[in-house]
Structures are given as C-alpha cells and as structure tokens.
C-alpha cells in the first residue's frame, strides 16, 4: 500500500459476494428445462388492436408458445389496485390487463409474449408477430389530459382524473402579510437500478407450488397479487427475491409481466424466465414523480409563516400501479409540504391524472421530494423579498423541540427531534458564514456561487394506521420476524423486509446481537422468501429498520421468555426465578448458575426436551410488529454550487448534511443510504429526465439519453449526525432510506437560483446547462 493512501473500508461482508461477482441475481438463475420470454410491446401511445397474426412467430425456430391478450383465459384477471377513500378524496380504479386487451394505452405496453428456447430466439420470433393497430388520439401532458376535449385514456371514465384529494387546516391570520408564489416542476424520472426487473416462474408439480423469483421489494404482497390475478385452487405461490441489484421503490410495484410469467409456468408446465433489458426498463418499468406544484406562501413582515396554499398535479400514466396506486404521489406531496415548519394554515388540492404514458410508481422519496422543492423554494423567495438571510428565516420558523411531539399542518405526528439544533449543526459543519463571504468575494471577480438550503422531515416506517388512513388496502403496514434457535445454538432470524443491497442483513445482525448480548457470528438472517419469512409489508418507504427491526426486537423479547421457559423446565424452577442476560439464562438467586444459548439449544432438541404446554418442541418465536407511531427523521442539507455564467454548467462544490435518523444501528449503512440518495437527488436536479413528446412517444429510452450522474458529478458528501431516539418505536428506531433524495433537489435548485439571483415563475428540473443559461439570460 502506498504511503499516505488510506484504503477504503471494505464495507460489510454482506456486500462482498455482490461486488466480487459471486452474487446470484435473477439472470444468474437457471432451472433445468427453462424457457425464455420476450414481450412484444406497443409502438403506439394509444391505439386499438385490430388484428394480431402470430402464425409466423409460432412457427419460428425454438418457439414454445406465443400468447396475446386474447389467448389468456378469463381466469387471468387484470391488476386492479383498490383504494378505500374518505369524503375528502375520490379515486377511480383502472383495470390493467396483464397483456393488452384490444387496446394499448402507452408505448411499451405488453401486447404479446413469445416463449422460446433462448432469449435470442424469442426476440427473433417477437419481430414476426404481426399486429395491426388503429392509432387513436393520445394525450401526453397532464395539463392537456385535463382539457375539455382531451382524449380519454379509459373509456369508462368521464374524464382523466384518477385521484383527487383536498386538505384544509387552520385559517390564515387576517393581518397584513407578504406572500410569494411559484410553480415547481419535477421531471418524470426512474430509479435506474443496475439490475433491471425480471421474473423466473417454475411450477413444482409434486409440491403443487408455483415458485416465482423476482427482484421484488414486496415478496408477500406480490404473492397476494399473483393469487388475486390467477385462479390457483390448491396451488401455493412462493415468491423468492434472490440477490437484488437495487430497487429504489421501482421494484415495489408489481409488473404485469410477473403475472404473465406465473401464468406461463402453469400453462406450459415449464420454467420460464424473463429478464427485462434496459430498453424495456425505460419503456415499461415504473416511472416516477412527473408532478407540478403551484404554491403560495404567506408570512408576516418578520418572516413568520402564516399559511401555505398549494395545488399539485401528477401525471400518473396509463394505469394505477399495485399496491399503492396513483394516490401515492398527491397524498405524499400533501403530507410533505409543511416540512419542519410551524404553519398555522394549509390548504391543498392534489390530483393524479391518467395520460398515455408509462404508469408511475414509487421511487425513493416519492412526493416527499416535492415538499422541500416547493417549500424551500418559497422560503428562499420570501427571504429575498424580506431581506432576511435564508438560514435565519428558516430558524425563525422551525418547530422548536419544546413543541414535540407536534402535529404538522398536514396532520402528521412529528414524534421527536430538535430541528433548530439540526440547522445550527449544519451551518456550523459547513461554515455557512464563510460560504456567504466566499460567495460575495467570488461575485466581485465575476464568479457565480450559490448556496442552497433544504430543511425537511422524513416520515419513516409507516404503520398500519397510516395505510388505513390513506386507504391503501393492499399494504398491511406491519412487518414480522421469526427467530429459530437451531440444534447448534445458531439463531436464524427471518424478517419480512428483504434487501436490495442496503445491507439489512448486516444491520439486523447487529441489532439482534446487541439486543440479545450474543455474537453476530451466531446469527443468520433470512430475507426475501415467502416460504422462509413471515408475512409482512416488505422493504419500501424507509421501513425496514423500523418495521423489520421493530419486529426483530419484539421477537427477541419473546425469545428470551421462551429460553427462560426451557431453562425453567431444565432446572425445575419457576420462570420468575430466572432472568435472561447476555446470551444466557441465569438463576436470580444463584446468578452463577447459567445456561447459554448453546446449552439451551442442545437441551431443547435433545432426548430430555420437554413438551411445553404452550409450544411445540424446539425454540421458535414469531412477532408481527405494527409500529405504535410513524417515526419522523429529519435532516438539513447545505449545498454550495458554482454556475458558469456563459455556459450554464453547474458544479457542486460542497455538500453538507446533518441527519437525525434516531439511533444508528449501522452508521456506515446510514451514510451509504444518505450518499446514494443524494447522488440520485443530484441526478433529478441536474441530469435525469424521462421525456415524452406531445404525442406520447418516449424519447429517452436508453442511458445515452437518460443521463445519470457519474462519479465525477457527485461531490464528496460531508455528513454529521444527531441521534434523537423516537419515544414511540421499538428501540427508538427511525428510518433513513430516502432522506438524501428528499433534500437534494431542493438544495441544488435553491443554490442555482441563489447564484443567479433569480426567482423564475417556474422552477423546472433538471437544471440542464441550457435551462440555467436561459434563466440567467432572462434575468439579465
């Protein structure tokens, strides 16, 4: 090793097989006799399917089957995502046929599937499927879809509005106020995981079990959906998520293709694999965001906030995705807008409208990203208007710790946190004052520096009550863990929140080892297999540490009780004479008398094992966890950027984060989450945009046109921490999976506008060099 060069830490062992090429991702799986599927996809945004001639494709070399929508028997039902709405919301269900039924509604919609001996042959034959389409008028932009004469995406509905909700709280004070407003447009983006989606389905006739491997984030809910869409009788469905190369929320939606694969395996009685390629991923995996928010913020002359009024419009694409539906984005934007601020009045209208675009789904941060983009954008405007330093303006309005727990203007409970301290910590870590001086000096020499601030909260690990309130009936809101102590004293902890590379195994091991006072080496974590893990919601919305971790902690307490019960039987003592401590059960009166895990395991599996009244032999415990509250993490981001005046190029010079996500089980994992999500947020702010033309044709169907930030575009991210435990969750745990991307677009956009000293009518991301230059020319 060269002197002075520090080696990067190798990271948790869990990642080693993945980075050494020893992972087993979906496409690495091979089942004997396996066939390969390729989908034929619509080239039209809106068209009727007149005829399909699959004769040549069926006759092509190596083809086992070609199916169209018409070939699917009636028992293959469309994906139907329900929402139970209250009086303040309306929702219209869209049926999403798993293969287009007579009509296509977006470019890339699956119309037919070809199954052949190899993917090459399947693609050869797919090109031979002859489909006659009658193109229909299409609508691509959300605003256009609401127009009076707009083509309707679903004939059965009176207009294209799929979801609408309103929210009103408080009333703005009547005394004179200043107000600022603006329109904020977040592009349609996607998660762009390294591994695309896909599925492998295999029917095991002996076991009467249909096994579906998929990179899904929601194995149990996907299993529910497969059962809902297919008539399976006594056939069990088992979903297995193997190693997964990134999910980011995109893989928490069920794909119609997954249902088709399950059907194919049953129908053909052969395993069938489909590996989505990048082109398909852009055409037909889930997109996200595509939202515009118009908002107005009112304050007193001292900058104290009086009220916020906002209207959000989300371009939801052609169908409502499973399990969260098109309601997700408008509902989340509503809850995110008030942020960490005291806001006496809030009025909100949000809608999701159907267009002839690919459906949107969850992507890391969901509508929470729009919250700070709008609120922090308006705060900057207010600061400029009032001549108050933007950091000071925020400090004046943050909810103080004395108010905790607080209820936000959107009705969300903020359980804990010290937001003013977090802001002060960030300012100190960054040297905010020095940044302002540097900015002033640079300006004299003609260089444009800008500072962006994002203060925000991140509701994490949402519980059952939140999903019931939102009407999201397909999500239980609970998670679960099962602990099994085996004969050798090893614990298998099976948890319902799978990993997509976030190193939950490592974090869960740590959490459990600390809780039980045992070594991490005696724990094995099982994830991502519905046959091995108990039923639960899955990994999304920053829930795996709160939900999965909470379930583990609860199960650990039950395990202690169970161990005590076995020890009581072994010693013939009452349970209340014993206690569990640091990996062993001890007698309270004679603490040197101990049985450790290995001894208890041997006893419980040995010839003298008792059959306890309330349990089977062996030591197995189970816990389903519904977090008593939805814990709220918080963070502040500060970004320093330079804008090159004559080209509009933006360079991020410094990026400082203060994060409070509660007690950190795995600090390296926490920082990895923050860094990765900020990189994606910088992507949304400066690079990434899925573009459709006005007719609904997708123009960005490859990574040549959809620009992801590369290593050289991401600055070193400096992170400092506060750890405020939640008073309401097991272990005081909170989540952190999305934080970075919630703040980054706001911080970057704010910094660019600060550099240019402009407040355009519309802030439109990504801030491409050309858009930035246009802003600066318009300002001059």
């Amino acid at each position, binding site marked *: 090793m060269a002197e002075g060069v520090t080696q990067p830490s190798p990271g948790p062992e869990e990642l080693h097989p993945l980075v050494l090429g020893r992972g087993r991702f979906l496409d690495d799986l091979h089942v004997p006799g396996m066939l390969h599927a390729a989908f034929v996809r619509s080239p039209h945004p809106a068209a009727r399917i007149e005829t399909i001639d699959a004769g040549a494709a069926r006759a092509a070399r190596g083809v086992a089957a070609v199916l169209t929508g018409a070939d699917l028997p009636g028992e293959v039902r469309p994906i139907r995502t329900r929402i139970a709405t209250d009086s303040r919301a309306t929702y219209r269900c869209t049926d999403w046929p798993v293969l287009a039924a007579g009509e296509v509604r977006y470019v890339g919609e699956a119309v037919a599937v070809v199954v052949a001996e190899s993917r090459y042959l399947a693609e050869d034959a797919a090109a031979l499927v002859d489909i006659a389409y009658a193109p229909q008028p299409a609508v691509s932009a959300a605003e256009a879809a609401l127009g009076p004469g707009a083509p309707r995406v679903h004939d059965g509905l009176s207009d294209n509005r799929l979801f609408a909700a309103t929210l009103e709280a408080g009333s703005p004070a009547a005394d004179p106020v200043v107000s600022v407003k603006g329109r904020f447009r977040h592009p349609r983006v996607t998660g762009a995981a390294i591994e695309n989606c896909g599925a492998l389905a295999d029917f095991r006739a002996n076991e009467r079990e249909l096994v579906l491997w998929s990179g899904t984030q929601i194995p149990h809910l996907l299993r529910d959906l497969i059962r809902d869409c297919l008539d399976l009788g006594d056939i069990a469905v088992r979903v297995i998520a193997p190693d997964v190369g990134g999910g980011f929320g995109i893989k928490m939606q069920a794909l119609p293709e997954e249902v088709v694969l399950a059907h194919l395996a049953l129908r053909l009685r052969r395993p069938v694999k489909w590996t989505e390629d*990048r082109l398909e991923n852009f055409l037909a995996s889930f997109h996200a965001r595509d939202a515009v928010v118009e908002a107005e913020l009112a304050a007193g002359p001292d900058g104290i906030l009086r009220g916020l009024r906002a209207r959000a419009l989300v371009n939801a694409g052609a169908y409502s995705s499973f399990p969260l539906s098109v309601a997700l984005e408008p509902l989340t934007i509503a809850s995110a807008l008030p942020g960490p601020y005291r806001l006496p009045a809030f009025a909100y209208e949000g809608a999701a409208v159907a267009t002839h675009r690919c459906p949107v789904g969850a992507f890391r941060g969901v509508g929470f990203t729009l919250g700070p983009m709008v609120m922090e954008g308006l705060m900057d405007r207010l600061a400029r208007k009032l001549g108050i330093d933007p950091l000071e303006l925020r400090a004046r309005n943050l909810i103080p710790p004395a108010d905790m727990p607080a209820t936000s203007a959107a009705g969300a409970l903020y359980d804990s946190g010290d937001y003013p301290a977090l802001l002060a910590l960030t300012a100190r870590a960054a040297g905010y004052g020095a940044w302002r001086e540097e900015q002033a000096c640079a300006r004299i020499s003609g260089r444009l520096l800008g500072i962006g601030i994002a203060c925000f909260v991140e509701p994490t690990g949402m519980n059952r009550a939140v999903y019931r309130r939102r009407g999201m009936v397909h999500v239980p809101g609970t998670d679960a863990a099962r602990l099994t102590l085996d004969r050798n004293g090893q614990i298998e902890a099976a948890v319902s929140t799978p990993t997509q590379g976030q190193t939950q195994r490592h974090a869960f091991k740590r959490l459990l080892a600390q809780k039980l006072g045992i070594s991490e080496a005696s724990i094995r974590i099982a994830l991502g297999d519905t046959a091995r893990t108990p039923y639960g919601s899955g990994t999304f919305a920053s829930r795996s540490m709160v939900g999965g971790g909470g379930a583990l902690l609860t199960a650990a307490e039950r395990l202690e009780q169970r161990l005590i019960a076995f020890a009581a039987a072994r010693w013939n003592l009452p349970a209340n004479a014993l206690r569990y401590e640091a990996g062993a059960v001890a007698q309270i009166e004679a603490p040197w008398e101990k049985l450790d895990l290995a001894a208890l395991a041997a006893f419980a599996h040995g010839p003298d094992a008792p059959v306890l009244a309330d349990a089977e032999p062996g030591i197995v415990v189970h816990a389903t966890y519904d977090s008593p509250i939805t814990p709220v993490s918080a963070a502040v981001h500060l970004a320093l950027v330079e804008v090159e005046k004559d080209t509009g190029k933006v360079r991020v010079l410094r990026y400082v984060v203060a994060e409070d996500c509660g007690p950190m089980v795995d600090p390296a994992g926490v920082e990895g989450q923050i860094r990765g999500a900020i990189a994606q947020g910088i992507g949304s702010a400066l690079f990434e945009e899925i*573009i459709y033309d006005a007719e609904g044709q997708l*123009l960005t169907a490859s990574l040549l*046109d959809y620009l992801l930030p*590369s290593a050289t575009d991401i600055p070193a991210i400096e992170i400092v921490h506060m750890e405020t435990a939640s008073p309401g969750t097991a272990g005081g745990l909170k989540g952190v999976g999305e934080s970075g991307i919630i703040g980054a677009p706001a911080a970057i956009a704010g910094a660019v506008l600060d550099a240019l000293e402009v407040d355009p009518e519309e802030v439109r991301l990504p801030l*491409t060099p050309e858009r930035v*230059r246009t802003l600066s020319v318009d300002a001059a």
Partner: protein
Amino acid sequence: MKPAPFAWCAPATLDEALDLLAGHADAARILAGGQTLGPLLNMRLATPSILIDINGIGELAGLHPDSAGLTIGALTRQSTLEDDPKLAALQPLIAMAIPHIAHRAIRNRGTVGGSLAHADPAAEWPALATLLGAHLLARSKSRGRRLIGAEEFFITHLTTALAPDELLCEVRVPPSPPGAGYAMLEFARRHGDFALAGAMVRLTSDAGGKLTDPRLVLFGTGRRASRARRAEAMLAGVSAGTALFAAAAATAATEIDPYDDLHASAEYRRHLAAVLASRALEEALARMNGKRHD
C-alpha cells in the same frame, strides 16, 4: 436486446479481410472495437448477415512515426495512444483529445479506425483528422489503395467516402509544425459523453508574430466536424489578440449548421461553439507563446 442472427468470421490477414469484404460488401459489417457496433447490433438497429472481425489482423494496429508524420493503424486502441509517452510531443492535439473520448473502459476496446469510419459529428477523431489535415488510407480488392483527405472523407452525419467493400487501414497525420500552439475544448453534459459542442485550434506564427495558417475546427455542431474557414481567414496574417479572437469565434459560430436534439437546442449549440472557440483560441495562443504548458 439480443442481436439478430449473423455469421462471424475472423480473418487473420488483411488480404483475407479484403476478400471477405469483396464477397459480401453489402451484407457485411466490420467489427473493430465493437463499442458502437455492439449496441447497434443488440438493439437490432444494425442487422448485418456477416460480421468481419478484424481484431486478429495485427498489421492494422500500431503507431509509426517518421519524417512524413505519424501513421496510426486503424485497429489501434484509443488507450494505446493514451498510454504512449511519445504522443504528446509528436501530436499534442491528439494527446489532448483522447481522454475526452468516452471512458477508459471504452477506450481500451475502441479503435481509431472505428471512430473515423463511424463518423459521428460529435466525435473527436473526425475533428482531429480535419484540423490536422490527415489522410486516410482505404483498401479494397476493387479499388486497391486509396488515400483520402480528411475533408473529402467525412461527408455528413455517419457517412464517409468509404465504399462498402473498402477497409480503412490507417490514418496519416502530417508532422506538427514547429512552435504550434494547440487547444481543444469541449462541452459535454457529463465527462465522457459526446460533446454538445467542441472546438479545436492550432496556431502558428511567423517571426514577426503574425499568425500563419490558423486552424479552427468546430465539432458536435453540424452534420460533420468542419473548419471555420471564414474565421480562419480573419485570423491569418494578423497579430493575435483577444478582441480579434472574440470576433473570429463569433464568425465561426455563423459557419456551422447546428441541430436540435434532446440534450441541446441548435441555438444553444451555436452559443457554446462561440464560447468554446474563443476560449480555445486564447488557450492555443498562450501555448504558442509558451505561457501555458499543461
């Protein structure tokens, strides 16, 4: 994203390759580094029935400097040039440009000939060949050897003067004039992307400090990389100066025919061309005057 079926043949000699090309000209594609052709095949945008893989033809690779300049074999990898310590002295502009071509992994496979034959208007090699007055040697069974000047070689977007049965074998670059100052600037969304616009400059001067044969090439701003002849004419024979450079850059920006695409409008490209041309002229001057050594 799997290619349509094709036959693959890997000739061991140039002669074999030319025979194959003669036999299959219209149905064949030459496979060099595959960094462009690979994706085209996978997306079925190219569906040749036969691929002629020239990677086994050793005589097509390598650098040969002599008094007539530098000859670079078509199969020479970009990374071979990048790693060659002699290049910066022989051809400073080429050495400046190579790191801007895609990413190292792509440069490890991508070839000079592939880049020239593909003729992307935003690529560095066509601009280099145009500015440096290179000649390209093509060979075929029907026409024998043809030496084509760069400005005749690049016809338009993805189109060259190569006939379907011709193989590009080498590019010949005349020696760098003594005392020349070079600059190469490009503006891309991310490092390694094709440029939205780029400018290359070579300045030389006579004993009296007057510019002789100034060269300015803009790329990524039209159907092909092209010399800004009117801007060059403004600069020829005069003493260099910043004011003049701005005017020449503005003129150069009127000599191009930029296009709109997803990443930039034509208007923005024209603007960038002027900005880059002006900066590149200044940099080249500083290098010519020995005030800049990077």
